């Protein structure tokens, strides 16, 4: 029997909520779905219309044309998300598929962002090649590993079965680590091999080491560093209690 982890919230609501509270719980669920969907659809059509379509595919067109493009791509995005929902139903819970997508996309991106923000020697070519190779490394790792109980295919292991991991989530996290390390090393390597295109003056404010320190008069307990350390301490304590 396969556990359906996606049904947890619904069965909790059914079990603990009488008629009044049930309405409130369902309203809250619907509201959060709608607001999440609205935010993501807006971001999707904005990024497509401004950063891809207007910048590279069809520049210098009229405002009505871009407005029409935004509407079209909204419909396309929603149809794609319906398809993605059917695709995601192949996993036992939503967290597994989300972490898989993040491991493919976010893990190399994180390495690129870290290097871009803290290392002034990083170059554009290095970042681009690093990102591509990080994503390619994720695909390679995914094609060579599998988790227990899964058949080779969309869950991985279609090229070779070099490593069988105990669960889907274990595969996701190893995938993310591998992609991060590959992207990090390749970005550093290619950046050192190519010439710098931006001088220190142009990078001021963008890279941490080149930004002048800000001195703010704040009481010691209101400063971000203090609050950050307190929050980190609470996080460690909670992890210890609930481990």
């Amino acid at each position, binding site marked *: 029997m396969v556990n359906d982890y996606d049904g947890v919230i619904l069965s909790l609501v059914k*079990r603990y909520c*009488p008629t*009044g*509270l049930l309405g*409130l719980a369902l309203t809250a669920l619907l509201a959060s779905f709608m607001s999440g969907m609205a935010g993501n659809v807006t971001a999707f059509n904005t990024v497509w219309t401004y950063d891809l379509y207007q910048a590279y595919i069809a520049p210098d067109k009229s405002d009505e044309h871009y407005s029409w493009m935004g509407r079209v791509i909204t419909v396309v995005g929603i149809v794609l998300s319906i398809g993605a929902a059917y695709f995601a139903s192949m996993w036992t819970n939503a967290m597994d598929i989300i972490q898989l997508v993040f491991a493919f996309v976010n893990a190399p991106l994180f390495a690129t962002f870290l290097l871009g923000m803290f290392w002034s020697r990083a170059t554009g070519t290095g970042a681009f090649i690093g990102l591509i190779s990080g994503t390619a490394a994720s695909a390679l790792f995914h094609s060579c590993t599998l988790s227990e109980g899964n058949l080779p295919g969309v869950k991985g292991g279609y090229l070779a079965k070099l490593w069988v991991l105990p669960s889907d989530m274990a595969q996701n996290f190893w995938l993310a680590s591998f992609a991060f390390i590959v992207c990090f090393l390749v970005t550093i390597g290619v950046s050192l091999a190519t010439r710098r295109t931006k001088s220190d003056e142009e990078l001021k404010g963008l890279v941490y080491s080149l930004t002048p320190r800000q001195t703010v008069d704040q009481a010691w307990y209101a400063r971000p560093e203090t609050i950050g350390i307190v929050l980190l301490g609470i996080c460690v304590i909670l992890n210890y209690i609930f481990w």
Partner: protein
Amino acid sequence: MGLDIRFPIGMMFTLIGLLLFGTGLFTDATAALRITPTINVNLIWGACLFLFGALMWGSAILGKNK
């Protein structure tokens, strides 16, 4: 400067709290529960939401008068 967000929060929570409290008073909310059929959750939770809404609304009014 615009709308103080505590106003709509306060109004919404007091209204929902009142509705839940009324539901808890006038219906038998404990029969359907299988875990603890003695606690009237609608009553308790309605009162909590109403209190939270009243606090928000009150602090918004105080902030406006300042």
